[in-house]
């Protein structure tokens, strides 16, 4: 895995010292020497990414004009987010972009060149205050703008929790027939493990927001998806929490249509059809799931269906329930801790509505109920082994 957390090294050691460090070091995040399952995802071959233009443009969710006429370009996730933001700023004067360190391009380069092209009035830095950023954004949106606010890391969204839960989520409801709302609001935030982010650069707080009616919670898994889902989030008239798996910013690369397009919110995507087990996930762990499924199908001779939730709330219950009614077994996978996580909601809903079709208890593969201690991340996050083992448990039950 590349060390892609920090935007750029602030300190570059002299050549002699670098050589000394190199001679005495091992790779920070190397796999176990004899590992068969827990190997890094090969993003250049994973079936979850579009490696050709024809594959990208074949997506039936794309508008016909894009499928027929758009070119594609190979983009990393941060580049496709940048494209979506650029399209939004171009198409609608009401779109604004702001947050901490956003003007120079952002610490993950998602807003690169937007300040110079769209001007300081529409793309700008804010003071370092998350509650201020979100409160400011709500006010902009309530006045008819479409602000896209950035929280630098999802780990730092908590100061803005009050503004999101008590204000953004309830604005339309309490305003009633006055019709005032802050639906133009999107709050973007990088989230998820990155190998060395420790306590405050690794969190995925999505379940805190899925408990809040009034908010939409979206997490893309790829550059293609990020562009379409972010465009849809900006167009949505409900406030959206848009969570970007930061370990995919540079790791994932695929063909993305150059033209603007949206992908539907609250609609799951079946990535791979199967008959015996349904694996449900979202964001970065989908790659782990895909790798685990490849091994499981080969080793156990089973057929696994893989579903990407995409919108975590309000979620696409019918697609998941229909799948589990067909397969009779379900595994839910996410990075954030298992206790009261998204998996709990998904598993409980499956249990309620597919009870007679279930052949095995719903498996939850998620972060343990602890914190992301620096050196323990590999033992905490769902990995290929744990997903593989959950599939095994489900089919052998």
């Amino acid at each position, binding site marked *: 895995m590349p060390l892609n957390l920090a935007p750029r090294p602030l300190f570059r050691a002299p050549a002699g010292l670098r050589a000394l460090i190199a001679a005495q070091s091992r790779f920070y995040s190397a796999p176990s020497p004899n590992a068969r399952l827990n190997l890094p995802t090969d993003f250049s071959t994973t079936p979850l990414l579009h490696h050709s233009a024809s594959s990208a443009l074949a997506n039936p969710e794309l508008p016909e004009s894009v499928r027929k006429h758009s070119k594609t370009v190979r983009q990393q996730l941060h580049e496709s987010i940048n494209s979506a933001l650029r399209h939004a700023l171009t198409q609608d004067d009401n779109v604004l972009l702001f947050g901490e360190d956003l003007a120079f391009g952002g610490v993950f380069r998602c807003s690169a060149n937007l300040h110079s092209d769209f001007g300081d009035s529409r793309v700008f830095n804010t*003071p370092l*205050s998350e509650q*201020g950023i979100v409160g400011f954004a709500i*006010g902009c949106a*309530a006045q008819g703008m479409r602000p896209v606010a950035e929280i630098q890391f999802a780990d730092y969204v908590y100061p803005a929790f009050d503004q999101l839960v008590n204000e953004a989520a309830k604005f339309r409801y*309490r305003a009633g027939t*006055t019709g005032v709302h802050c639906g133009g609001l999107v709050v973007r935030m990088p989230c998820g493990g990155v190998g060395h982010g420790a306590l405050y650069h690794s969190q995925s707080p999505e379940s805190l927001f899925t408990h809040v009616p009034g908010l939409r919670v979206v997490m893309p898994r790829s550059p293609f998806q990020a562009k379409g889902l972010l465009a849809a989030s900006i167009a949505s008239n409900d406030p959206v929490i848009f969570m970007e798996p930061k370990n995919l910013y540079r790791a994932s690369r695929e063909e993305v249509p150059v033209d603007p397009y949206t992908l539907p919110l609250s609609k799951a995507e079946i990535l791979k059809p199967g008959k015996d087990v349904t694996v449900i996930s979202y964001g970065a762990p989908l790659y782990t799931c895909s790798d685990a499924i490849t091994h499981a199908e080969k080793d156990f001779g089973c057929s696994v269906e893989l579903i990407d939730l995409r919108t975590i709330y309000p979620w696409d219950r019918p697609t998941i329930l229909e799948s589990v009614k067909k397969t009779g077994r379900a595994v839910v996978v996410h990075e954030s801790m298992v206790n009261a996580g998204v998996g709990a909601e998904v598993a409980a809903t499956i249990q309620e509505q597919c009870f007679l079709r279930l052949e095995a208890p719903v498996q939850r593969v998620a972060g343990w109920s602890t914190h992301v201690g620096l050196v323990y991340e590999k033992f905490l996050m769902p990995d290929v082994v744990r997903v593989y083992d959950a599939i095994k448990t489900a089919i052998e039950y």
Partner: protein
Amino acid sequence: MMLARIQQRRAIASCPHRIPRIGELGPQKRWKTTQAVAQQPWSDSLQFPGAIHSKFTTSLRFASTDPNHAMSTFRIMDAEGRLVDSSRAPINLSPEEVCKMYLDMLTVSIMDPIMQQAQRQGRLSFYMNSAGEEGIGVGSASALSSEDTIFLQYRETGVFQYRGFKLEEFMNQLFANSKDYGCGRNMPVHYGSRHLNIHTISSPLATQLPQASGAAYALKLQHLQSPSTVSKKVVACFFGDGAASEGDFHAALNIAATRSCPVIFLCRNNGYAISTPTLEQYRGDGIASRGVGYGIDTIRVDGNDIFAVREATLKARELALTGEMRPILIEAMSYRVSHHSTSDDSTKYRSGHEIDAWRRRDNPITRLRKWMEREGLWDEAREKEAQNRIKKEIMKAFNEAEREKKPRLGNLFNDVYEELTEEQREQVASLRKTIETYPAEYDVEQFEGGLDGLDTR
């Protein structure tokens, strides 16, 4: 050379946020918009980027507030309704306008005890009154354009009254009936009105402050994008001295200053946040002294002097819209004569004697009345007639609102999202089934449309 650099930096800092189109600017690097600052060995002042104008000193002295020299309080008339400064121009208001301001304060002060009583009788779930602070709401509202956007805390009934919120609109909200704009979802006194450009009040304190900054930024941008069709407007944002202790106060003032937002922050400093006196709320010179720290032009006014509140707000509005636009802070000093709310007995933490003294000695309504009587605009007969008429109008609106049905049951689910979710539709069906199975357990007939009202859009 140093001076030139500072002037250059200032010029850049005061440059309005223009709206360039794509291509207009051409390639532009971010670093060109900021100026390098370097500390020169011969300089007599600080040149670190964080403070470029600070002279060096060799005396070790900590800055502190001087308890004997608090920021002064702007007033126009004294407690007897006399103009304090005879050299000032006379009050520039038509008799009709002064009478409207007086009657609006009077209306709030008559409505408050009636609704307080209604709550005591259990006819209303909750109420908060504005006694002692009617002048702040009415005086400031009279200085704003009707197109200016307003964010409120909850003790600003005078703002609604001045802007033209009708008695039946107050009552519909208080009784949470089917005509309430809030669809019966909010506690009483959480008014809101789109056509009056007042955002719906929410209970969490100070959350409206950074929102007001954002709204002001939006108004500014909308004007700059279409200067010929969209006029310059400000946002006025009200809050109490207690709310100013919240982090959102800090966030709001700082971001409003850095983004040059045309917002007037109007603090009602009434001495108490529920039971907490200001001595336990802060140790600086009130709220006003903080504004200066954020680089915000600030004034403290006598909140019982409606003319002072009006003049300060008029000037604040003008300043906020001048040049590249900017925020202004007004701290209006007053005394919370009433209990905090109907759930509070304020004699538990302050003496009835203290309250009575304020009620009798100094109050914005009697102060203006004394001025008006001296000007020949008001007398006892008019006072009696007005009081009786307003009381009757309030009771009429009260009785009509109380008789209305409650809103449709479907409003429990509507407006959470723009459209109902699949999960919510299932929950609506589930609730309907429960009510149908146990009809005696639920009184649905008091809601408009009964059980059928549960069918949402």
